[in-house]
């Protein structure tokens, strides 16, 4: 009997040894397939995403370590971010899109959605949104989604869900410097000029005004008796909110007033003519804490505070509307649009990733600020940032449900921001998308001429009287009238079509 036992045991050993030997290399076999019950997909992917700005070492370390560990765990993916500096963002982004590089997700402003849709750069998201985007639907008002709907389809995710009325029509000032010259607030253009004059008298190294994007609407509130909303950031057209008429802004008296004012500012030194052609230098001035005021964007006082305080720890920022009693208009409740390129390889995962961001406050804080305790702390219900950069700009995903005010931002600034939309009106431009396709050629020419001729007038380097008529002639030659006619036509159709 024992010999029979011995035999069976030996056979068993041999058999198991063979089985082990055969299975030895199968450990790494991956199972591929769709999704498991927990919503975590089975296949591991690398999501490629384009972001504007610069990547700091801290951001990169966070992505490579904590974030991608978390994303692997939650979504079985890793994030690969390509940062394009702000100055060349649009140009490089469009180059990537037009050459069909396989990025999966990118951000841009809402006004670009329509153009990218007509160029075929992006794909409709309705199905993906319904299937994977329930947290987006839950946390972003349905109205915001309408912004990015064209031809009945959703083309982008309006990632921001916050206050937005009168965006780009306010002015942001260095409140601490304003107070240091004995002023308390800005209500008129004269206040701005006085602020510069007083400050410059104390320290001539301060730089007056920075214009990196649209800057005309700030002045309109005071210089125009009507309620005008700019059509877009290109300062060509506007809508009269009272009458609903489209305004040919460049040829209007208002433009003339603005141009004269700028000319005056150059003379006064508020605009430094030596820096006008050197955009990065202007930003360097702001980063160096030498800027007195610039265009506001509802929450810029909060967003830029950190940078300002880095250069001058006592810095305070505040946004003001000139002619504060005039109404504010909501053109786009979210100017931020996340789009999925048509060439995306992992569109589903891109949607799941966005959904993940708004899934919980924890995720939201994690992707924006990083690891709690390491990159930020919560103090008295406010967030204290321990770093000076954010992986994703907080404003991109700012959401009423998850927003936490930073500790360094004064309560009145937060209050301004949270109550910005109180009593705001919906702009007549809300939901309108200009399809540039019919006047594509003219539009390109108009923009080139505008840049060559009008930028100089806008910045005050060339006087309106001396430069305008030739510039306008060139603009008309480029097809300006045709563009305006097409815009009017489309806008009338848009108005006719709405209830």
């Amino acid at each position, binding site marked *: 009997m024992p010999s029979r036992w011995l035999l069976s045991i030996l056979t068993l050993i041999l058999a198991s040894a063979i089985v082990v030997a055969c299975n030895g290399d199968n450990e790494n076999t991956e199972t591929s397939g769709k999704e498991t019950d927990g919503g975590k997909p089975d296949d591991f992917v690398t999501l490629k995403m384009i972001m504007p700005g610069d990547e700091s070492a801290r951001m990169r370390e966070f992505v490579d*370590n904590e974030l991608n560990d978390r994303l692997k765990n939650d979504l079985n993916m890793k994030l690969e971010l390509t940062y394009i500096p702000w100055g*060349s963002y649009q140009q490089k982004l469009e180059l990537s899109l037009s050459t069909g590089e396989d990025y999966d997700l990118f951000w841009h402003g809402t006004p670009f959605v329509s153009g990218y849709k007509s160029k075929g750069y992006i794909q409709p998201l309705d199905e993906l949104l319904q299937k994977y985007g329930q947290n987006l639907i839950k946390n972003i008002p349905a109205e915001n989604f309408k912004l990015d709907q064209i031809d009945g389809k959703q083309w982008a995710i309006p990632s921001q869900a916050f206050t937005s009325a009168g965006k780009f029509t306010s002015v942001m000032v260095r409140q601490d410097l304003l107070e240091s010259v004995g002023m308390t607030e800005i209500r008129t253009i004269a206040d701005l000029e006085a602020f510069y004059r007083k400050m410059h008298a104390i320290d001539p190294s301060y730089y007056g005004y920075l214009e990196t994007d649209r800057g005309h609407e700030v002045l309109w509130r005071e210089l125009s008796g009507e309620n005008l909303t700019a059509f877009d950031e290109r300062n060509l057209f506007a809508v009269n909110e009272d009458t609903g008429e489209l305004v040919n802004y460049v040829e209007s008296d208002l433009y003339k007033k603005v141009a004269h004012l700028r000319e005056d500012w150059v003379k006064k030194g508020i605009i430094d003519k030596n820096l006008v052609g050197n955009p990065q230098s202007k930003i360097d001035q702001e980063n160096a804490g030498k800027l007195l005021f610039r265009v506001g964007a509802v929450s810029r006082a909060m967003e830029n505070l950190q940078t300002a305080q880095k250069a001058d720890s006592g810095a305070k920022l505040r946004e003001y509307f000139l002619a504060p009693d005039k109404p504010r208009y909501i053109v786009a409740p979210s100017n931020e649009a996340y789009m999925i390129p048509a060439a995306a390889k992992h569109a589903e995962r891109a949607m799941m990733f966005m959904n993940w961001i708004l899934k919980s406050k924890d995720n939201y804080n994690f992707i924006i600020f990083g690891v709690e305790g390491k990159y930020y702390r919560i103090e008295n219900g406010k967030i204290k940032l321990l770093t000076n950069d954010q992986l994703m700009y907080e404003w991109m995903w700012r959401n009423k449900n998850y927003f936490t005010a930073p500790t360094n931002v004064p309560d009145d600034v937060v209050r301004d921001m949270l109550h910005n939309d109180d009593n705001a009106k919906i702009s007549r431009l809300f939901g309108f998308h200009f399809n540039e396709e019919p006047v594509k050629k003219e539009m390109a020419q108009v923009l080139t001429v505008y840049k060559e001729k009008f930028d100089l007038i806008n910045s005050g380097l060339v006087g309106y009287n001396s430069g305008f008529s030739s510039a306008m002639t060139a603009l008309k030659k480029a097809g300006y009238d045709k563009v305006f006619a097409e815009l009017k036509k489309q806008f009338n159709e848009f108005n006719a079509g709405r209830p």
Partner: protein
Amino acid sequence: MKRFGIFAKMMIMLMILLTPILVLYAISNRTSTTVLTQEIMKVKRNQIESSAGQLNQLFAQFDSYKKMLYESTDVRNLAYPDLLGDDLLQYHTLRTVSEEINRLAGYGNWKAVIAVVYPKTGMVIRSNSNLNALPELLPDHDAYWDYRRDDRGSYFIDTFSYPDQWSNTEQPDIRVVVKVDETEIMSQLTELKSGGFSDPILFLPDADPIYNYSANRGLIRGLRPALQFIRNLPDGEQTFLNADADGNTYQIHFQKIESLGWYLVDYIPISRIMKPINRDRTMFYSISGMMLFMAVCLSFLLYRNIRIPFRKLLQSMNLIEKGIYSSRMRDRPPGEFRILYDRFNAMAERIEDLIEVVLKEQIQSKEANLKHLQSQINPHFLYNTLAYIKSMIELGEKEAAIAMTMSLSKYYRYTTKSGKKLATVREELELVSHYLQIHRSLTDSFEFEFEMDDRLLDLEVPRLILQPLVENVVLHAFKNNDEYGIVRIVGRMDGDAARLSVEDNGPGMPLPDLDALQTAFRSVKNEEIESGLLNVHRRMQLLFGDDAGLRIMPSDSGGVAAELRWTVPEGNGSLTEDGKGELRVV
């Protein structure tokens, strides 16, 4: 060798089979390991050379951008704003230079800060990026990819100034600066890592290495002492070195990036790469060892289960051969050998049985015949007969004397004819009638009669089988009997069962005596033959088998009947001379 025949042979065969396999495997394993190591080295070499080449190229390219800007008229003109005079011209020149710089900085994936600095006017034109600002202090002499550090981090800087000599009091007019941050290099190293490098770093002896973002810094610190040797190596002669850290062996490959003077370094955990191969090898050897061990076990089992029982069987056979028939197989193993052992035991038993029976029978047969012969030479009988003949002659009864003499002579001739052992019933009856005639003549106290089935007459029976029965009747039945005795000899056939009985009308025997007699008959095999009746019974059994024999019972006429019964052998054939053989069927 003889003792372990099968065992040893099997072992040798196994060795012959296994050895070439093991040798071949060892050779092929060594070859593949070498080839693999060389391939890995070659791949890594190519990878590191081309990447270092690309990095070198890139920095050279940035350097050429620097020269382009340095030579640009627009850049020069901006150094002397008073000469330009016109705001608009300055704006256009500024914008052109700014755009040019941004264009140059925008090429490729690398983010460098490209800037033109005019120290005298304080103007800076640079590529746009928020993070990668210029250092607060530019180097006080022109640098070619110097590695420097300020409170915002480390960077490589490349500058070109006009004029190229200056003092603290007189700053240069123009400085063209290209700066690459360490963080950018870290990003690019991380890219390399995701592109197939295992853990690339940039290394310069005596400086802190530039890591990739997910570098295993602890391990690299462990490898640093070995890396310091790079300094002592002549350029290009050696391209890798080996180092141990964390219990693994690492092959460290390096290639100098000429423009930076730093080395691009990557390491391969060679012992970890080889681990699966080594594991497979170990597994193969251990399985081979296990198989060998199992084969030894199997052959041992075979030896135990076949060879040993077989040997035992042979030993027992030898004992049987030597005449020790009592030898039996004990400790019967399971399986086929149990059957074999059982059969052997059965066979040995049969042999023992047969040999004992034959021996006993021979002895008993001799003994029975001897007894019989003894019984025939009965002096009393002879004396009586002779006395009768004498008196008859004296009485002149010549006829009676002659008859008696004839009977006696026939009787003795028959009884002394010892050559034959068998006789027919007819012959026996004839003898008995002579015997009875003699006795009747002597005593005249009984009659006798035959009642015989004819089929019985030619059957063969042992010689002188009937005479003892008749003698018994004559001697005992009528001794004290007043009546006239009658002896009846009856023969019957019932199928193939033959019966031959001798009955008398004497006083008979008491029943206990009869029983005792029957018992004696039953155990006759083992007993010495003492009485004539037992002798008869035994002889019948010896010839016709155990069913045959003698039975004593009360007769119909009140006396005793002694009955011989036997089964007539098939074919009614005559028995062989010696009275045994095929008739002795069990």
